[in-house]
């Protein structure tokens, strides 16, 4: 089980397109991946687009990613990269 903190840096926040990308990436891994907003107890499944949309994470939001499973390290890497690349929006 690993935990990491990511910041939403892209202009639009976790909107449909970013959320879709995140779900696609997260779904590649066997590990259970959940997201929560900093300071909020509610955890959502990173493989659920509806959950991510409901998180309503706009630009500047800080999220805690918890990953648990055999490929948790690779998953953590991939998700961190996605957030750092701003979901490919502003490249």
């Amino acid at each position, binding site marked *: 089980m690993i935990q990491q903190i990511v910041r939403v840096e892209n202009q639009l926040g976790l909107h449909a397109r970013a959320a*879709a990308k995140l*779900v696609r990436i997260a779904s590649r891994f066997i590990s259970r991946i959940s997201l929560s907003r900093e300071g909020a107890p509610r955890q959502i499944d990173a493989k659920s687009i509806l959950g991510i949309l*409901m998180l*309503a994470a706009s630009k500047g939001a800080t999220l805690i990613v918890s990953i648990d499973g055999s490929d948790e390290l690779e998953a953590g890497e991939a998700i961190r990269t996605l957030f750092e690349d701003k979901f490919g929006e502003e490249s």
Partner: protein
Amino acid sequence: MKQEQVFRGIGVSPGIIRGQALKLHSHNRFAFKLYVDDVHLDEEVARLEAAIRLSREQLQSLKSRLAQKVAHEHSFILEAHILMLEDRSLISDIVAAIHGTHANAEWAVLQATEQIRRALASLQDDYLRERASDIDDVAERILANLSGSQHIQWSRLPRDLIVISQDFNPSSFATMDFERVRGLALESGGRTSHTAILSRSLRIPAVMGIQGFLGHVTTGDSLILDGDEGLLVLNPSPERIDGVAEHLAQVEEQAGRGSAVPGAPAASGHDGVHVALRANTDLPHEVAAAKKCGAEGIGLFRTDIYLFMQPDGFPDVQTQAATYALLSKEMSPHPVAVRTLDTGVDITPGRTRPARRYNSIMGLRGIRLSLLERDQFCTQIEAILRAGESGRMEIVLPMVTSLEEIRRAKALIESVRSRIFGNREGIHPIPVGAMIEVPAAVMALDAIAREVDFLCVGTNDLIQYILAVDRGNPEVSHLYQPLHPAVLFALKRIAEVSRTLGIPARVCGEMSANPFFAVLLMGLGFSEFSMNAFAIPTIRKVFQELQPDIAREIARCALCLNSAAEIAEHLLESVSAALHSDLSTFTRELLSSRDNASSPAR
């Protein structure tokens, strides 16, 4: 106790009813909660999974087609939809709703997606709030794939439904069961829409143009619909329910009276003249009401709506023949008179025909159109002839103005007959009648009547043409006067020619549904009437009470009067005196004749 809420719209079809809401989603799909028992729950989940799988496949192929045409940028919203369909939290919510509440898949989909829609709609973020419409799209797609081609299981639904929807295509009438759907409340539409016209013809109370009410009402909510005042009441208070109870009881009593005399030995007049009361219909399933009200056959099946509103296009010979045969079986031993296509207007959305065919009352329509473009006419004739092998059918030709038109139409009918039956013996001939609805036909009636087996008097159009008044034009509609002396003169002449030549004449307009007018028509010499089925019990009672010589005397006096107002006054007095029935509900229509005669209705 939920708070009563009143919404205002336009009453387009009269009547007050109480019932529960049935919410239609786009494309007239809806979900109603059905109980699924334990042994069928797994089946229901499997049905859901198949629909979700199919929905995904559709979106995938849509996405790949779209990706070829537009920039990849725009296909991400489809990607989002696909991911929603793959979202395990959504699917498990739906499955939980099926198992937890023994609900059908459709209902479970709506419940689960409605929760998400609400959650999204409550977010601060404008953009995310709009995603609520995406979940609607997804739900819509699953619903379409769940029950797209399947017939709605009406038999499992309650009998007091009030359909609520944004819009309602005329074609949707064909999919409704009006034993169960008792009213219609829409956000869109107005008095002159086809949907409004159909509601009136089906006697379904309807209110349209109720802005923004759909968000407040869901399937199963308690409603009162008032088509007279144009009101929709959500969660009506006990006081309001009491207030309309008396009215509702009256309506039910009337309906009950109808069912009490099915196929009754009917309204024989006192001197042994048999008075036949038949039903006018626009749609095949109205035959149920016709039967219930004791109609002796279908006196006029106006087929335009049936022919031009099928989702699959103009029905072919087999389809039409099956429909006509079913009607004649239901009505047996009485006949079913099919009026051949009249307006030629295709009102199916997206399949509008060229403008020249639009229903101008003096334009290319009725028999004129059928003789010019024969394919649809001949298809219909073939279907009627084939149905005639197993039941009693009649053909009625609309908009006849001359002898030649009848001869040419009959030649066409004969050519279809010999093509399908050859010289086969034992085929009973199918009577051919003419609509008498144009003044020319009244004036040339001797010649026309000799060429046909019976006459159908279309009073609605005949009055319009005699008085040169388009009823749809509010500037002149007050001049539409059924009791105008010119109209009475024409009716008297038709009755006389009919009697002299021994050719039956049937009054098919709505005039005969009002007791005052019906008495006058009987007095003029008519003995066959076709009207809205629901009017039959009342009119039957009138004819059972009435002495024919009194009717004749009433008509004789009416013919001596010189204005619609005087004739209305005369009927009010003399008919009220001759009958025991309470006629108060019919006096308004009668007196509008008197009061509007000189000035426009305001």
